[in-house]
């Protein structure tokens, strides 16, 4: 049997090349499970259309002027919700024993996580691109032009990256993918609705406004609006980065610890 002759190990690949292989896996998943792309973009498209046309007139005078405020916010909401996918994928891999195989290979132990991140970045870029396109068709105009949009997408991916750690930690702790999603959404919904994404905080009661104004989701949304509208300040972008950077600094080491603990 030809496959059973002794085959020696080729020169060990670099940690970076290991990570790329996991990234390739994420791309293959898109090819074989195109449905996930549907989940990924249908909800935000629905939100964009419903909010713009149903509430837009009441909230901002006209659907057109509402879209101008709402679009950068729906982008933030989308990447935060979509970050759940890597946690669910991780939980699936763990429950199926796939991670046991990865862990018994002589590879960089964090490569599988790097692969999840590659998948996340792809998802965020695709979903963000589709929503922006819909927005442009509906009449959204980013005043800051191409550079502003590129800058806002860089921030967007950073936000998704930071949020991703929450779900990766949940994925490592919880062996049922659906539970990862439910727990994640339970925390995510209040954070996203009690923010300045959909409604101007000025219309909210004082106690709620106090929360909304320090809610990291609001800070990130304001920075997105600033970058796309050409009015961003360094301070605005700086405070928007606090949450993703803090999450990464806290949860990345926790991820490593949880992964190696066994």
């Amino acid at each position, binding site marked *: 049997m030809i496959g059973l002759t002794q085959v020696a190990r080729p020169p060990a690949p670099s940690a970076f090349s290991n990570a790329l292989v996991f990234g390739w896996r994420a791309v293959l998943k898109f090819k074989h499970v195109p449905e996930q792309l549907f989940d990924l973009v249908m909800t935000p498209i629905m939100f964009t259309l419903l909010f713009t046309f149903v509430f837009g007139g009441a909230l901002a005078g006209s659907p057109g002027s509402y879209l101008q405020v709402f679009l950068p916010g729906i982008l933030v909401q989308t990447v935060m919700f979509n970050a759940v996918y890597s946690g669910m994928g991780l939980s699936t891999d763990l429950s199926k024993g796939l991670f046991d*195989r990865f862990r018994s290979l002589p590879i960089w132990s964090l490569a599988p996580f790097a692969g999840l991140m590659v998948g996340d970045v792809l998802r965020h870029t695709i979903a963000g691109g589709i929503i922006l396109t819909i927005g442009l068709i509906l009449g959204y105009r980013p005043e800051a032009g191409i550079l502003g949009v590129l800058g806002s997408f860089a921030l967007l991916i950073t936000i998704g990256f930071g949020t991703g750690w929450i779900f990766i930690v949940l994925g490592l702790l919880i062996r049922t993918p659906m539970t990862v999603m439910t727990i994640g959404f339970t925390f995510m919904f209040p954070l996203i609705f009690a923010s300045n994404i959909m409604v101007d905080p000025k219309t909210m009661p004082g106690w709620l406004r106090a929360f909304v104004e320090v809610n990291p989701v609001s800070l990130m949304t304001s920075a997105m609006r600033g970058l796309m509208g050409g009015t961003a300040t360094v301070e605005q972008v700086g405070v928007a980065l606090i949450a993703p950077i803090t999450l990464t600094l806290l949860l990345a080491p926790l991820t490593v610890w949880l992964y190696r603990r066994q």
Partner: protein
Amino acid sequence: MNSITPAVHARGLVKKFGDLRAVDGIDLDVPRGMIFAILGPNGAGKTTLMRMLATLLHPDEGAASVMGHDLKAAPDQVRASIAMTGQFASLDEDLTGRENLMLLARLWGFRGKLARERADQLLATFDLADAATKQVKDYSGGMRRRLDIAASLIVTPGVLFLDEPTTGLDPVARKSVWGMIRQLAGSGVTILLTTQYMDEADQLAARIAVIDHGKKIAEGTPRELKVATGSGFLHVAVADPARLEEAAKLLELHLRAAVQRSAEGGRLAVVAKSPKDANAALGALIDAGIELADFSMGSPSLEEVFFALTGKAKP
């Protein structure tokens, strides 16, 4: 590392889960090139023991080396010389068979076309070439198992760990996995497998360690295990039916056990504690001038062995 170091050498391995001592002080020596079976009922600690040896769990006590590399000091070298096929097919269901193998080949360091070539070689070897472009979720149980084992052979491992390789397979798929395991062993790979099936250990393994409640309760070749339980059967056919009673008395005297007569009347069967006892009893028959048409020492099934060792009906 030299060629004399055993493939697996473990001393006093312990793994605790809370109050449960899942593995409770196990010593193990697996010589190179051998098929070695760990036999035991569900929950005996087989999988935990194997996961420790595959660097997936840290032992709480004890030490072990695999292919001469210490588990604690050199886990990366251990990982480079082993492969593990878990109890549940550890494959990506969404990817095709070929993609699964290519993924692992790339992780091992096969670049570009080489990864694809290695994947296709293994697919052909394991009779999966036709299913190369099918997603694994559409594979049958037997195909998954074959792909799972193929995935462990991207680079020929020093030791291949197989955790219950045929659990849940139909008899035909089971036979084909057995054939594969034998061929692998023939190519020089040391194989450590766990099983809860007596016949599987008996069919495949050169040595068997019987494990129950985290402890090794017996170890030896299948034959030794059967003999150790002392429940072998000596079957004797006497040439002259007239001397049957005399022969039965002699056997009873030497083996101190009740002799059963077969239905046709010409054969005698008696429990013999060891081949030595059986030999002595046969010697007595010959010394008495009783001519034997034929005799044989029959083995008890491993099921009977397990019963004798643990007092449990069935693992």
